[in-house]
């Protein structure tokens, strides 16, 4: 019974952390382009940044 007094708030706190993380992700636009995110992950990160900034196309 006493353990519940600790465990229940702890469980809820962890759940709240997850919820807060989701709401933050939503606010920061991470759900704006779900298709793009799914495809970009397949590309090598190093290649997605221009290596030689300053060169004109």
């Amino acid at each position, binding site marked *: *019974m006493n353990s*519940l007094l600790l465990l*229940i708030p702890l*469980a*809820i706190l962890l*759940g*709240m952390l*997850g*919820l807060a993380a*989701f*709401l933050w992700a*939503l606010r920061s636009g991470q*759900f*704006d*382009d*779900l*298709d*793009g995110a*799914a*495809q*970009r*992950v*397949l*590309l090598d990160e190093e*290649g*997605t*940044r*221009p*290596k*030689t*900034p*300053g*060169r*004109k*196309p």
Partner: protein
Amino acid sequence: MSATAAAIAMPAPGTAAGAEPRCAHCDAPLAAAQARFCCHGCEAAAGLVAGMGLAAFYARRLAFAPGALRPASAAEDVEAFVRPDGAGRAALELHVEGLDCGACAWLVETALARDPAMRRARANLSTRRLVLEWEGEAARGQEFADLLASLGFRVAPFDPALAGDGQARREAELLRAMAVSGFAAANVMLLSVSVWSGHAGSMGPATREMLHWVSALIALPAIAFAGIPFFRSAARALAAGRTNMDVPISIGVTLAAGMSLWETLHGRDHAFFDSAVTLLFFLLVGRYLDLRARGRARRAAQHVVSLAARAVRVVLPDGRVETRRPQAVQAGDVVLVASGERVPVDGVVARGETRLDQSIVTGESMPVAVAPGAGAFAGSVNLGPAIELRTRAAGEGTLLAEIARLMEAAERGQGRFVALADRVARLYAPVVHVAGALTFLLWFVVLDAPAHQALLNAAAVLIITCPCALALAVPVVQVVASARLMRSGILMKSATALERLAAIDMVALDKTGTLTQGRPVLVSSPGAEELLLAASMAQASRHPLSIALAAAAPGARLAEGVAERPGEGLALASAEGEVRLGNRAFCGVAGEPVAGVDELELWLARPGRKAVRFGFRDELREDAAEAIAALRDRGLELVLLSGDRPAVVEMVAARVGIAAREGGLRPGDKLRRLEELAARGRRVLMAGDGINDAPALAAAHASISPSSAADIARNAADFVFQGARLGAVAEAIDVARAARRLAGQNLLLALAYNLLAVPLAVAGHVTPLVAAVAMSSSSLVVIANALRLSRGRTGP
């Protein structure tokens, strides 16, 4: 370019068995004579990509449509859409066609980010939009758009202000509510499971009370937040004197929460917090998916529209030419319409003589000659030399104003269609509330129970009948059906369109652009050699007949040194002399085009040889006859309504086998025909693409347009189908009918659940456990049943 030499030195592929030779850039099939690239544009684009060190693009891209990346020399005029911020920065948003895979986004972003002035280049694959921000002059926007065009991406400027319809905001609101209710549902359910198992075991009243209080602490704020979309909609409905599904939902959820709080306060056994939050969670999932599916369809339709939007070239009084957005053109402005371009505004010809293809405006398939003083309608295509038009004021008897007036009248005349779910809700809400009241009376008056017990049982009835399955029954089917239609390239624009389409018993078809392809197609050619030569010249021009020629010989490579003579044709300097491709006079052919023949023509004159003729006609869609037969098989009556000359209509109708036809109809006539049919109790599906079809599309019971249709027609239609197949109409009807069947089944399932649960509740046997199991299982059954629609064909 070194790539050219390599390409020519390579042996012609095609000897290897199996693999068809394909263009190294755009993946279109290659003709026998071509080595690696299908055209100069692709070769240049591949050179450009390799030059930037981005050749990895070709290895990285996954699935994309062959030929989609065929480059253009320059992009549409985007300058008018650049938004300078006044502090040395400028921003531009573009729709990018061909942005289909991660590698494409990578190529676009990386290629643009190479420019030192570029601050932000971000492609969104879901919406196919590209946001650019750079430092420096606004005029550089055109440079960036041209770079994309030369890589093979078709771009169109896009005005974010026009698309700001709150869709994204509503989606985010629902997603937030869903997250909160999901969190609450999971946690409260965990606590509830302990309480339920405690009933059977040894849980003491103090522990149970504490768990109830924790549940209340989580559930009440979550309900207050996540229930807002439902409460708002219910309040709006009640204020308007109606009820909708959200009224019983709001009452059920509020009652469940209030009663549970009361129970908790008095330290009793049962609290329904879990039912209330899971209910909200399920409903929000349904709402979110529904909104997203419809948003997707609308975005896709918008995308098609914006690709057709072009900047307008306005001739200023001092003779300079300025490009403006279509909305910025005012009455009296003189607009330049080049050869092969679409007329952007209604106007009067101020200078120049030409022939206009007005088929999308009036349905008439033969071009009309216009001279100064003659009217020209927006949407027509200029087949001859460039002309200047003086823009007419809106309301000055323009065709568009007339069409808009007819459409408004048609929409007013059409009785407001009430969606199935709303019709059910109108019956359901009063029945449920009466049942709750009767339960109270039964316990309080007849059985003489204490007031709080009678109230509890009455509340249990309202909670258990809270229409979770019922509220999901129709939307889930809608979501699944619209996703299925989208896979077939059919976009559903209105929420009730599916139900209306399922009810139709007759189809009215337009001819030009609906039964036919709406653009000229080569129908007679003198020979393969001549065709190849003509097509290689035609690649240099954007004239509709040139495009038709080039399409007829996809293997042709652009000939070097083609000059366009506006209003006459194309000329190519060769060793023997000038080769000409153009009209009769330009090619030295005597006589007038044979009257009555429903054909356009081009002549090819080579030095020392007799000129030869290419004939073009607006051909039937490839599967037109098949699609018409499919519609008839579904028991639908067919009628052809066209603005074209009766003789042509007669011929087309005979070829596809439609008995009922009418030609020479004006926009108002089509509308009247549909109204007559509706008055006789017929439910008509109108399929049309022209500006003249728009009022009829608005008036019909349901309507469908090809994506090649005029803007106004696409906007009026309930469905827009992409691609060249007319079979999409029959497919849409099949899906709509299957969806109606499934929605009916779902409603029956939901009703059966209520018939089982309500007696239990009235008898006072509904515990939170029973409520949770019954509600979740009925929702899952309904969803599973709807998902059957996404599995292949469900039959007609």
